[in-house]
């Protein structure tokens, strides 16, 4: 067993931190909360040049050909620095499943553009049913000649406003089930019949509602096989939930660090508040939570990366990390006193995102249920 990073991975981690310290100051994070697009082309291009956007895309499509695990190392840093923009949607989700399920022509058309920063992509699974389970999907795609016609509503779609392509999970067989009833479509943003309405959310991230009214998509734009779309959706959820855990770990680690710095510095009753046992116990509990997050999260990602069965590990990680990160933020606030309750202080940027991250790809209840099923109870 070796729970460390190898040399290349360390290099990736350290350079990511150095770059983001320079390129992603908290002022940018705040500005992007207010920004309609939520990211800057400068930072996006920069990330392309560093090879991050193509990190796990095979070399023949202009990527770095690194693993999902390597991508996770980067995500710990983007989580720590609250990097704004569609990195998760485009790189972690879209490029991964396009690589896995795309046809040769889809891959050679799309992946190089993702890698060089020219194309933003996202995945649309959830609907007003607000669940990641297949029975929540009501959006239909009906065959019409060599086209499919999409009707329905997607909700809570990240980065839909800025995406060039949206990978839409639709129901293609009314009577079908997870094994044959769903299909994923690659939908260009300019296709007529789509209405995208931004949502205001707790994390000020860029989520949207997309209404599809007779949106006609050529069968060439089916991703994977017709009827086999739920496998892809499930893959998105697995990759998404495990990768979110790493992103959250990065954030939680920073919250711990901020809090420890603060309690060493803040003086009340003539001594640093960090010298009070109550606060020491708070910090100790936070450290315990963060440590717990680290290895369950990386374990899940590692199993995926190695191609091993990972359902149980993913759900254990997402259930634990979702709750732990929330606790870490809550104790962080408590230890900061009133200053941490202000908008001006950076802590709230983490707390609000922790909530959104907890909800994404299934919250702790959803994943706890899966763990229970995995246990056979």
């Amino acid at each position, binding site marked *: 067993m070796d729970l460390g990073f190898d040399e290349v991975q360390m290099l990736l981690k350290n350079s990511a931190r150095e770059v983001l310290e320079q390129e992603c100051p908290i002022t940018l994070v705040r500005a992007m909360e207010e920004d309609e697009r939520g990211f800057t082309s400068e930072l996006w291009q920069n990330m392309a040049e560093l090879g991050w956007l193509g990190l796990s895309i095979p070399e023949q499509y202009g990527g770095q050909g690194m693993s999902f695990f390597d991508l996770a190392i980067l995500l710990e840093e983007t989580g720590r620095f609250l990097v704004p923009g569609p990195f998760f949607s485009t790189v972690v989700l879209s490029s991964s499943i396009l690589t896995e399920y795309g046809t040769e022509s889809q891959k050679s058309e799309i992946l190089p553009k993702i890698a060089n920063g020219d194309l933003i992509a996202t995945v649309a699974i959830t609907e007003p049913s607000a669940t990641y389970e297949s029975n929540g999907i009501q959006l239909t795609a009906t065959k019409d000649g060599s086209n499919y016609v999409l009707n329905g509503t997607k909700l809570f779609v990240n980065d839909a406003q800025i995406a060039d392509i949206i990978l839409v999970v639709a129901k293609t067989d009314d009577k079908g089930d997870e094994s044959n009833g769903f299909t994923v479509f690659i939908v260009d943003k300019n296709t007529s019949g789509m209405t995208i309405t931004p949502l205001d959310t707790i994390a000020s991230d860029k989520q949207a509602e997309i209404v599809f009214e007779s949106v006609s998509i050529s069968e060439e734009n089916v991703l994977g096989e017709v009827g086999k779309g739920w496998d892809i959706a499930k893959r998105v959820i697995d990759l998404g939930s495990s990768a979110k855990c790493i992103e959250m770990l990065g954030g939680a680690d920073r919250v711990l660090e901020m809090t420890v710095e603060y309690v060493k510095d803040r003086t009340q009753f003539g001594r640093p508040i960090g010298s009070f046992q109550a606060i020491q116990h708070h910090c100790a509990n936070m450290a315990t939570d963060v440590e717990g997050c680290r290895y369950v999260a990386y374990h899940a990602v590692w199993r995926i990366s190695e191609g091993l069965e990972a359902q149980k590990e993913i759900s254990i990680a997402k259930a634990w990390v979702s709750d732990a990160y929330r606790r870490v933020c809550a104790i962080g606030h408590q230890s900061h006193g009133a200053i941490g309750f202000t908008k001006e202080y950076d802590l709230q940027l983490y707390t609000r995102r922790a*909530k959104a991250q907890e909800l994404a790809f299934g919250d702790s209840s959803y994943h706890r249920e899966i763990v229970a099923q995995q246990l056979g109870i």
Partner: protein
Amino acid sequence: MDFKFSTEEETFQNDVNGFLKKELPSDWTGETAYASSDDGWNFNLKMKKKLAEKGWLTLGWPKEYGGMEASIMSQVLFNEQMAYNRAPGIDIWGIKMLAPTLMVHGTEEQKQRFLPPVANGEVQWCQGYSEPGSGSDLASLQTRAEVDGDEYVVNGTKIWTSNGHRADWIILLARTDTDAPKHRGITMLLVDMKTPGISVNPIVNMAGMHEFNQVFFDNVRVPKRNLVGEENRGWYVGATLLDFERSGVQYSAEARRTIDDLVGFIKDNPSSNFDLSGREHLRNRLADMAIETEVSRMISYNIGFMQSQGFVPNKEASICKSFSTEMEQRVAETGMHILGLYGQLTSDSKWAPLRVRIERTFLRHHSATLASGTSEIQRNIIATRGLGLPRA
């Protein structure tokens, strides 16, 4: 033991309820932060006048000050109903801090001057205690008040001043003796917020609301007749134990309301994704919250009972504050959990359940365990004053 309320108490409770039903808009979900919007504030002022007409602002005041001298339990019930209905109109600083302090320590002139406007709902007070360097360790405060003729000249800054931007007057603690031990050099002054030299800077909280402020004092001149009690005795004046209701019943009432809202919402949306049947963990969690809320309510009733028997609640109040505010956070969190992805929506829209109340409550309640004595300080009090453990 007898857990029943008296007939008068029950009648009174019904009166309050009837009044609130009549006065609050039928779709009233409760302004989350009155001070944050002009509309919210104006409604608060309107309600204040109506409560004053009823005599309910001064429910617990002695008759000689125009109060109703209502029993402690009636006050508990009143506060419980107000909190459950999320009704605005109560200036807690004027009614619950200033008034009792003046009744004990104020001069006749001060009582004449300051009490009637509070009773009539014509004035808003705020509390100028905390400073950037003095939070839990309040007695270390640095704002200076120096005598100059028959005035004090105040310099310094106060922070986290709730409603500072709405208030007419501020209850100020300032240092008048820099050589004395820290608790013995503090003086309480009443300061008109319109006095030249005062400026109020907004501080926006993490829920994006403007409720508290930083207040700056630059050579602010305060007449000596606005000194409360003796000079340098302000710490003790400020700590005057009030014979008003201190049950903390509002915490459980607020939480109960949130739970009732959630339950109503779940029932109104059968076989939706808010349906909890078959989701045992969430049902259990919500049930746990209902249980905790009842525990908190009983702790509060007991505090009310103790007070009505002439005892001064001490560790009980700290137990109530820490348990109940932490519970309120758990309730909000449970609500967020039940709402799932919908819980993250922040503006009222066709998609937003319960008009984003749960999300607002979730963010705002981060401060519940900080304001008016943090959970850690409450536990210190429970351990030392309550259980007799040695101080750190």
